[in-house]
């Protein structure tokens, strides 16, 4: 039986890398004594995978992991047992059965980032919001540095090719919540640092206070139905 859990990664646990997060999940499943399935071969490993990597140091409101069991389990039961074994900051906020043949990772279509920005002068709010809403209308190229053997190679990327949508989520006093929907395709995605540079350059009169990943979107969402 395959399931998907949706969980948060908040607080200090955000300093754990992608691979280490995977190990945290594997050990939690072991301690919860859930009937995890193992791969065949010399070094059998537990069948757990995380849908999309998250940058080290970033918090997330919506991470997804696919887990395979050797037998049928009740989702509520799994959630309860697993939650007890997870560290602070990793909270299971959704659990689903998953029956598609494709891996969850291959279905990821977008990452949604949330930017909390502070407006330097609240009289400018309307102007700032307008700049944000119009930000995708103009091309913005960044240079990516790559090391090929000992040479440095630069590649130019147009940010807006990767950005699906930018929306203002809420305004509270001088704090603005922006959601940026970034494509996650075969040819890659954008790095958080790149998004940061872009926003800083293109929107005047703001200070970025906090960035987190809000959610992931999937090509096929048929499995993503709340159980009850």
């Amino acid at each position, binding site marked *: 039986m395959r399931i998907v859990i949706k969980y948060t990664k908040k607080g*200090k646990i955000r*300093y754990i890398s992608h691979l*280490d997060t995977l190990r945290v999940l594997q*050990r939690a499943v*072991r301690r919860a004594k859930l009937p995890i399935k193992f791969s065949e071969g010399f*070094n059998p490993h537990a069948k757990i995978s995380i849908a999309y990597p998250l940058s080290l*140091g970033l918090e997330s409101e919506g991470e997804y992991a696919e887990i395979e069991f050797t037998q049928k389990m009740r989702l509520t039961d799994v959630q309860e047992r697993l939650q007890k*074994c997870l560290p602070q900051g990793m909270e299971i906020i959704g659990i689903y059965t998953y029956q598609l043949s494709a891996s969850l990772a291959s279905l990821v279509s977008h990452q949604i980032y949330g930017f909390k920005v502070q407006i330097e002068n609240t009289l400018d709010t309307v102007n700032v919001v307008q700049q944000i809403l119009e930000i995708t209308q103009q091309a913005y190229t960044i240079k990516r540095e790559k090391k090929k053997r000992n040479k440095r190679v630069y590649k130019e990327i147009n940010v807006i090719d990767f950005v699906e949508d930018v929306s203002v989520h809420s305004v509270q006093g001088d704090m603005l919540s922006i959601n940026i929907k970034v494509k996650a395709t075969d040819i890659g995605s954008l790095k958080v640092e790149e998004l940061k540079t872009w926003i800083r350059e293109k929107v005047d009169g703001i200070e970025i206070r906090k960035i987190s990943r809000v959610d992931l979107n999937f090509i096929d969402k048929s499995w993503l139905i709340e159980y009850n």
Partner: protein
Amino acid sequence: MDNYKLDQLLLKVEKPARYIGGELNSVDKSKEKVDIRFAFAFPDVYEVGMSHLGMHILYQLLNERPDTWCERVFAPWPDMEQQLIEHKTPLFALESTDPLCEFDIIGFTLQYEMSYTNILNMLKLSNIPMESHDRSDNHPLVFAGGPCSFNPEPLHAFVDVFFIGESEEQLPKVLDIYNQHQHNGWNKQAFLEEICQLQGIYIPSFYDVVYKEDGTIKERVKKNNKAPDTIKKVIVKDLDISYYPDKIIVPFIETVHDRVVLELFRGCTRGCRFCQAGMIYRPIREKKPETLIKQVDQLLQSTGHEEISLSSLSTGDYSQLMPLAEALLDAYEKEKISLSLPSLRLDSMSSEMIDRIHSVRKSGLTFAPEAGTQKMRDVINKNLTENQIMDTLKVAYKLGWSTVKLYFMVGLPGEEIEDIYGIKDMAYHIKDAFFDRPKEEIKGNLKVSVSAACFVPKPFTPFQWDGQNTLEQFRDKTALLKREIKDKKISYTYHDPKLSILEGIFALGDRRLAAVLKNAVSKGCRFDGWSDYFDYALWMKVFEEENIDYTYYNHRNKSFDEVLPWDFIDSGVSKDYLIKEKQKSLNEEITDDCRLNCTGCGINHQLLGGPCFENRN
């Protein structure tokens, strides 16, 4: 420290998870509700420190006390050190993120000499005066324990209290006394005077050392009449009833040993003459299989680890090894929990057993012949013959093993050029044994790795009087092997001789090296055990500035009647025994494993008050 400030530091370092704490089984307490705040300090990076079993034992032991909160602190990696300095933030403990200067006691563990500069640097980064006499009653006390405390003298100026031997029982006693003193008005001197009466406690400030004109020690003078003349090490007599944690911290990030570690016994009966651990951890004390099975079960449940490692000085010698291994496999095979076993016991295992271990995880074979010729192995009393290795290998090759690791030392006392060639010969024999089989049997890709370490004479061993090889001698020997071992199937690596030279100086050092340490730290020496940061030239400059001829410590052959800096410590093994062993080594004469015959080292009289084995004939 507030979260925002901490985030500013963490976002700028390579591996922030080293500093966040909060791992499974780590302990959070309210600082208002405890009397003693104890920082367990490991003077190396997180990944190394977290792999050390002793820290896990003491951490959980101290945290079981309602009056104590034991936290951890590791040497910050240079990127974090830079952040701490730039942000003017003192070094902090992982659990509370409070600075070390707010603690009552900082307890350092001394696992290897090359971490000494990290100790001083950690104090410096905490804004705590490095030297004991500069610390007031309001500063934290500095404790130290672990194997290197058997020669504590190079650190005498920095540490208030040394623990000699195994601290599980003594540390709680000292904390009880500490608490009494705190409640009745704190006076550091009075506290030190009381605890120095306990076995295994050494207060360096209570003594002075007088030197002769030739630089050797004339005598030790007591400055406090309450201080004992000799310090006798402490041991835990019965490991079945002594404390062992039922949970250990599970790091978020990968560490050196990422598994459940099961300590089968302490001590070793082999009597290898170069080995300090084999002498200072005597006598041998085994745990019963029932105890071990109970402990491993609790640990697996509380950690979720997927590997069990049996850990002891010579694990293959555990009297109940096969029944234990079988019981562990029966219990955990299905859960895909793997078991690492010492290689040398393969010859005495049934092939069915080997197959079961093999089916979960295939690890390589490891041997430590230490020397290349039988003559040399007799000199060092490493009772392992080439035939024994070959017999094991024949079984292993047949079962599909093809990775072999071999550990050797160069620069051993009495070594000749043939003995170096012997290392090469053994590696080639091992390779030949793989291919000298019918073609259809040869499977897999053979990989033999040869590793050569440079010998460091250590206190409390029969070789404590021997001078260490010089840098040039080590270089010649390691280079010879580099030239000679030319085979695609055999890889060769060797330790940096410069590091071993410095290790030798501090292992055999005395009080006069404290000034050297202090100077080296002021020049930026730390993480000396890491080749990226070790700066030999800088160290040589420090010796010159301090006007110390380091060769006096490590290259000189000493006479049996010289007063050695660590002679005031009683390890339980008599000096007469060490002299006898040294003389036997000169005659290439071996000494039996003391499981077979008591070899009269003295430990049973001095510490046990009875024989080492209960049911011996």
